[in-house]
Structures are given as structure tokens and as C-alpha cells.
């Protein structure tokens, strides 16, 4: 990573370098965003929906998202379920074993904030963001598998705006409609109805 960082910095500061940088970024982000392999850190009830997401009817694989049990193969850690103080060191250790760049999705209220176990209990970590940097939060107890798929799309947006040069943010415009973006869907519908082109 250090070499890429230096290269990115050098390109960013040299005249005309940003043209190369933009192309490099586009290729890097395209390849990263389209195959986000997940590390299913399922501990409790939410893990059931995490499993359901990769089986028939929801079928995660079609988004290029494959669950892998080995942290060294993965890009995204999906923390699904309650994290107790006894479990937290193991989660931290697995996160440390994942190669950079890496992201974290907090799935379910327990992983977001402790959820139903926020009050009156002595053993639950109040949200996985107490010790991991979380990129996407999904609310729900448990969230539906569709919500997890939406989280992957949101994460893809974030990945697409990253640059190899540190501190640089890419502006990306989405052409394809995304779920949860109804206006883009309307535009497609308008095109289908023949309103878009005359």
C-alpha cells in the first residue's frame, strides 16, 4: 500500500498527473466495488438473515458478494448479531487479519448500538463501532436480507468515491438506477414510455 500511496501522491501533485490518476482510480474502484467478498461475522439472530441473504430467493452471489469464512480472502466484515465483551477480542482479531482496503457493515440493532440489550445488561458491547470503524449501519431487529443487499449497494457508492491518492475524493455520477433511488427509476420509466427520446 505504501508504494501505491506514494505513487498516488506524486501523480496528484504533478501537472497532468490527475488524468492518469482518474483512470487508475476508475479501474481500481470498479474492480473493488464489483466483488465485495464478505466475512460473515454472524454471532446471534441476525446471522440467520445473513445466511438467508445468500440462499435462493435473495441470492447474494449475483452481486458478486460471496461469503468467505477466512478473513484473509475478504473485503467487508458484516457484523451481524450481538457482540459481547467475551467475543469482542475475537472480532477485533479477525478484523486485523483482513487485508486492506477493508470495510465494515454493522447489521442489526445489536451491532449498531446494542439494540434491545442496551439497557440492564452487563455483558454486551454497545455497538461494534466502539472498537471497529463502521462504514454502513443497517437498522432492524433483524434487518431483512434485502436491507443487507441495499447496504452492499451503499457501500459500493462509498468504494467508488475512493482514490488511490490519500485525501482525494472522486466525484461519481450514477447512471444505473439504484434500489432506494426512486427518481432514477422514474427516469428509466420515462425512457420506456418514450418520453425520454423524441
Amino acid at each position, binding site marked *: 500500500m505504501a508504494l501505491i500511496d506514494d505513487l498516488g501522491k506524486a501523480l496528484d501533485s504533478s501537472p497532468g498527473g490527475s488524468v492518469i490518476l482518474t483512470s487508475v482510480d476508475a479501474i481500481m474502484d470498479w474492480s473493488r466495488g464489483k466483488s465485495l467478498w464478505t466475512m460473515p461475522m454472524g454471532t446471534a*439472530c441476525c446471522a440467520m438473515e445473513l445466511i438467508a441473504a445468500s440462499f435462493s430467493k435473495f441470492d447474494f452471489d449475483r452481486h458478486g458478494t460471496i461469503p468467505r469464512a477466512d478473513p484473509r480472502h475478504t473485503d467487508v466484515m458484516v457484523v451481524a448479531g450481538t457482540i459481547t465483551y467475551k467475543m469482542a477480542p475475537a*472480532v477485533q482479531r479477525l478484523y486485523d487479519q483482513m487485508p486492506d482496503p477493508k470495510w465494515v457493515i454493522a447489521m442489526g440493532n445489536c451491532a449498531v448500538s446494542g439494540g434491545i440489550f442496551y439497557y440492564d445488561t452487563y455483558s454486551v458491547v454497545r455497538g461494534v463501532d466502539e472498537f471497529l470503524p463502521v462504514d454502513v449501519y443497517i437498522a432492524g431487529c433483524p434487518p431483512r436480507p434485502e436491507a443487507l443487499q441495499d447496504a452492499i449497494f451503499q457501500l459500493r457508492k462509498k468504494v467508488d468515491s475512493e482514490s488511490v491518492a490519500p485525501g482525494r475524493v472522486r466525484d461519481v455520477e450514477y447512471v444505473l438506477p439504484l434500489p432506494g433511488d426512486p427518481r432514477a427509476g422514474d427516469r428509466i420509466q420515462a425512457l420506456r414510455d418514450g418520453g425520454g427520446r423524441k
Partner: protein
Amino acid sequence: MTEELVVNIGPSHPSTHGVCRMVTTLDGEIVRHVEVVIGHLHRGIEKMAENRTYLQVVPLTDRLDYVGSMYANWAYCRAVERLAGIRVPERAEYLRVIVCELQRIASHMMSVGPAGADVGATTAFMYTFAQREQVVDLFEQLCGARLTYNYVRPGGVSMDVPEGWVDNVRAFCRSHPSAMAEVDRFLFGNVIARQRMKGIGVLAPEDAVAWGASGPVARGSGVSWDLRRDDSYSVYPRLDFDIPLGSNGDCYDRARVRLWEAIESCRIIEQALDQIEPGPVMAEAVPRLITPRPGEAYDHIEGARGSLGVYLVSDGTPRPYRMKVRSPAFCNLALVPMLAEGHTLSDLVVILGSLDPVFGEVDR
């Protein structure tokens, strides 16, 4: 005798079916000793219950056994009803039986499928999970939740069935047995799966009784013990069903007993749907703040994993003084060191899977 090797499996390992850690002492590939370390999912639910009113505890019981939430709901509500002397209307009892048998199917599908996946036959998991998804859809139509239902409440159930639900359940019950027969053929009839499961982790009937095993783990060893028949509760005496029994007590029998129970459950549901009559689904005048007289109550039901009991102590306030859950998964998990000794490391995974532990319930 080669040099002994200590291998740590878990707490995050795909084959431990949750957050279980097993410290395994190996001699070559042979397991000499297993130490199961639990508590990675201890959320203090029993302690939390002491700070909630009786009605507020119901959602907590959902999170105990998250593969079969309805059971913990029901066991807890029965204990509360016994404590407060609430009579449940008949229609509610029937609905409870129907949802719990559906839940048994859903839960067993999460055990039979992974039993195949543990021995390398992932196809079975795909088939069983599709069946489970259908049950989950039925529950979603019924109460709006896919996993944590909060459906059984002290005094009855939270709402009556929606329009068309009964037909959907009947359609499911008609299609389910043939799907199971197919899984039976290509999982339990498969030579490789048979060789991986037969004769592995044999549990003698005496041991099953002595270690407090229950549910399909005990019945796989031929112990004919089922609370639905032997300590009959609710409307089960009016229903006619068989109890599948295994003969050898190995992983194969335990998994197969679950498969047949899932088929028996369809029979129970169909009979219950025939007998059910219109009426109220909630007992009259159940107060929001249930305040039982000081005392204690214990009630148990046959969950998907065995006899699931809830013990409640009341001190006359609107909150339980103590709640204790007798968790079948915990008792069954205690068998792992005994069953795994002398088998290979890869069989350890199969043995653990055949006991079907759910760690929300083991650790509570």
C-alpha cells in the same frame, strides 16, 4: 502415540454453528479430548428479565433460541399463565400448536441441511433452506416478522390469522412431505453421506438419559420421550401423531429423526386446522401489568431441540423476581466431549452439527 497437539476451533468458525470455541487435543488426527468453551453470546437475558414487566419479557424470549423463537415464547407464556392463573381460549391453543409445529419444521430444516453441509453435501442445505423460507414467509404473513415473532403472549396470541393464511398453510403441508422425501433420497441415501454419518458419535440410550439429553438427540438413540405425548399439554391429546425413533444413536439417526419429525409436524398441522373453531384468541381481561401473587411456576414444552422449560419466581410485584431457562441445547452440548473422543477431527464437526446447538439458548 504421536506428540499431542492442541488445536483451537472457534469462536468464529463456520462449522461450529455459532460462537462456540472448542479446545481440541489431537493425537495425529484422532480427537483425544475436547473442551467446549461457551459464553461468547452470554447476553444476560435472565438477569434482564428481572427489570422488565411480564409482558416486556416476551420479546427477550424471542432472542433466546433464534432458530425457533415461538417455543421460547410459548414456554415462557405458559409459565406466566400458570403463575397468574390465566385461562387461554381454545382457538389460541390451536394457533399456538400450529405455529409451533411450523416452527419445528423451520428449525429442523436448519439442522438437516447443515448436517449435509458438514459432510460436504451442500445441495441438501439449498433444498431445506428453500423449505424454511416458505415457513418464514407464512410467519411473515401471520405476524409481520421473519425471525423474532413476539406472537405468543400471556393469555393467548397477539392476533388472529389473516385472510387466506389457512389455505397457504394447507398448501405448504401438502408440498412439504414430498420435498422431504427427495432430501431423504439424495442426502440419506447418498453413499458418501451415509459413510460419513453412520456409526459416528454413537450415544447409548442409558447415556442419553443420564446426561439429560432430550429432543431428537435422545430420540435418535431410541429413547421414546416426547413431552407432547408423555406430559401432554395444550391440545396435543386430541391430535394423532407418531414419534420417530432412531435405533443406533449415531449422527445419521439424529439427523434422520429430525427429517421425519418435520413430516409428522405436517400431519399435526393438518389435523389442527381441521379441528380449529372460530373464537377469541386472547383471554379476557388480561391486564397490561400482570401482577401475580408471590409464588413460583415451572412449565416445559417440547421444543425443536428438546424439553424447554421456564421457571419463574414472583414476589408479588409486576416484574419477575427470577427467570430461569432450562435450555435443551445446553444439556445436549454437554455430550460433545464424550461423543467426539476417538473420532477424527473432521467427525467432530459432524457430531457438533448433529446435536444442533443454538448458542443464543446455550449462553442466554
